[in-house]
């Protein structure tokens, strides 16, 4: 049947994508990755989980006695489900723009680095100093010393 074939194909293709992404972090080529890389792998496959989401997933993936490694046999079914169910769907540009606009309370059209820092390092799932510094280095306009967030979007 045409439907079944395409469903199977989708699953196979999905699993190959997962396998590929997994391999990039499988340093010893023994089908395991460091548990600390799981977030990166999941995100690089197009998902936008929160830190809390990740925490739950990792708890599911770890061994009975945590070894610090996650095995592919466990990762594959979990990740396949996540992708096929389209969990943690992408954040669209519109949404992201709205988010910046919300933070720009005075509707200036831009954000001061201190403003953004305050929100991102104190609220929600706070950034580490390193994350904040890195984001600022990319986001702050060097001449005006503000974040022209509208420029991020086309």
């Amino acid at each position, binding site marked *: 049947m045409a439907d079944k074939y395409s469903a199977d194909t989708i699953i196979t293709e999905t699993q190959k994508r997962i396998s590929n*992404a997994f391999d990039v972090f499988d340093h010893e*080529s023994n089908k395991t990755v460091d548990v600390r890389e799981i977030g990166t792998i999941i995100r690089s496959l197009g998902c936008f989980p929160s830190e809390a989401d990740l925490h739950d997933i990792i708890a599911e993936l770890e061994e009975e006695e945590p070894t610090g490694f996650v095995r592919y046999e466990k990762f594959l079914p979990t990740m396949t489900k996540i992708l096929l169910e389209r969990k943690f769907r992408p954040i669209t540009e519109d949404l992201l723009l709205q*988010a910046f606009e919300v933070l720009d309370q005075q509707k200036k059209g831009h954000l001061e680095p201190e403003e953004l820092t305050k929100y991102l390092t104190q609220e929600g799932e706070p950034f580490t100093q390193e994350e904040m510094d*890195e984001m600022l280095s990319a986001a702050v306009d060097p001449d005006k010393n503000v974040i022209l967030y509208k420029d991020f979007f086309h």
Partner: protein
Amino acid sequence: MGCGTSIAVENQTHPSETAIKAAILIQRWYRRYVAHLEMRRRYTWNIFQSIEYAGEQDQLQLSSFFSFMLDNFTHMNGNGPDLISHLLDSVVDPLTEEVRQLKYEQIVVPESYCGPRLSFPLSVTDTNALLSAFKEEQTLHGKYVLQLLYETKKFLKQMPNIIYLSTSYAKEITICGDLHGRLDDLLLIFYKNGLPSAENPYIFNGDFVDRGKKSTEIIIILFAFLLLYPDHMHLNRGNHEDHIMNLRYGFTREVMQKYKTHGREMLQLLQDVFSLLPLATVIDNKVLIVHGGISDKIDLDFLSTVERHKVKSALRLPKRSVDHLNVHANIRSSSRQSGRSRLDSPCSSGRTSRASRRRKKHITKQGSCSSSSSSSSSSSSVCSPRVSSRNTSRRPPPSPSLPSPTDVLQVPFLDSFVSLEPPEPPRDELERQQVVDILWSDPKNQSGCSPNSFRGGGCYFGPDVTQALLQKHGLCLLIRSHECKQEGYELCHNGQVITIFSASNYYEEGSNRGAYVKLGPELVPRFFQYQVSRSTRKLTLHQRVCVAEGSALRALKEKLYAHRSDLMAAFQQYDIDNTGRISTSEWAQVVESVLRLDLPWRTLRPRLARLGADGNVEYESCFEDISPGEPIPPVTPNLAETLYRYRTDLEIIFNIIDKDHSGQISIEEFRQTWKLFSSHLGVAVNDQTIDDMARSIDFNKDGSIDFNEFLEAFRVVHKLVIKEQQQG
């Protein structure tokens, strides 16, 4: 836990709650962005490493070519200019030590030379002068280099194989890893950590030369400090302190280009200097420092008795070639029974590292393409010079048409006259194995000790091997280098092994950091990282990733280009209807099997090839934006490809033939070489094509080829780069 709800709708919530939601959204988005960059950074790294490993594998191929050449020695005789006899021409260099020293003193340095003028014994003035000069891109005059090398050789002769140090006086010792000719990294280390001195001792753990462009400057600085502070500056030998490696990886070329008059003599001296470098350092009888690693056969007591200077190079001729030549009556056909017969055995099944999987594939491929190589494709085998201390008399060169009547095979390298002994007695073999293991081994995570048949020597040693050795000698830590690490250092084997690597941006700008480690009396390692940057402005993460990735992808595309015919043939096998498209799976499969690089091809596909409207891969698009430079007309695509693929090997062979390093070889020599090489490779190229090519390369029709120009012609050019240059 979807994030599909719009935030603006919830107008009854308190503004700050909305703000919190906005913050979470941005955080979530940003982390995903960073992860995406990290993925790209990671596969970029994989690409560089895979290509490097593949390059090392090519070295084994070159070795088998040399074997092939020697095997066919007799066939070449009387067949036009004899390549092999050309190689066997003798060169005179019988200077005694005193004469040599006098000779150097008498070299006249012109008034116009404004670089440092060294005086021996060296002082701080000299080392400071050297550092300033090199920062200003000056070159040290050949006279001083020769004198420096000569003094270093004298000094090193009195050194033992293993140096024992202590961290008394509450001094911290700084240990640096591979530098590979990166002067900027050395200068950065000195800037951050201070110059070597009695209060600031250093250990440099090998691989000072090759790959980078300032290997000469690095060894000059290191040797100068060595002579200045013999008790506080220590150098371990690395696997690149080996003149055969230098031939391939750039140091030889660098020396010859910088020192046209004295280069050859420097290289001769360096052969000795390198082989006299100590093999290991031990701190406080607790920390062992070696360049590569260890094996289950290593014993420090035995190692300290080894005659290290006899192992000039880890690479050498396979035994069967020596037999075949039948030039010595005394050769015993007894095989090398001693120690390691494991070098001849294929890799064990226990290893599952990515590299080993690749190697398994490579070795079988290797065996099939070279008719003359036996299972010793796993052993490193290149024409080897090993100076025997017993061979003091000069022998007359063999005449071209007769096999040498003498009982040793003379194989000159860069006009250095050395001889290859018949198969070594067992003890010598054991000694050699210890040295090779120290210089070439790598740690692995699985237990056991298996041959590093990939690198061609040494082995992979597991945590149990480390544990056993450390226990045997009452040590607590092994520090080694030899492998590039993204963060400049890495711990393994439960913290018992530290890898320290000091060449930042080793593969490309932004590819990795460099690091050094400091040990104080409590022997707790402190790591310091750095990264040399071409630009003064700090690049963002995104920019760094893009630069490195761009470079890796270019390298990968060049590989694709170099195997174009094979790839197209394989693609077309899947494309029965000739649509020009195949599925992503099929594309990935073909590329992996032809290039033999274990990479995440599906992830890389978007960067390498286009998709058609139907979602399948337009396979020819992976050869776009790559084309050869000015081609030497007329060459068939196949020939161009092959030349491109083997250009590194060709360069090495040419370097050997071009004994005076003038950059020119005769057309006849070129013809012979190419004919030989292509027949060895099994590539069908007819004589007419070679002749046409040879003639057309000789642009000024003087009967000689500037092979640098020739190679330049086959350098691949990227259309994108050209476009940028035109617009830029």
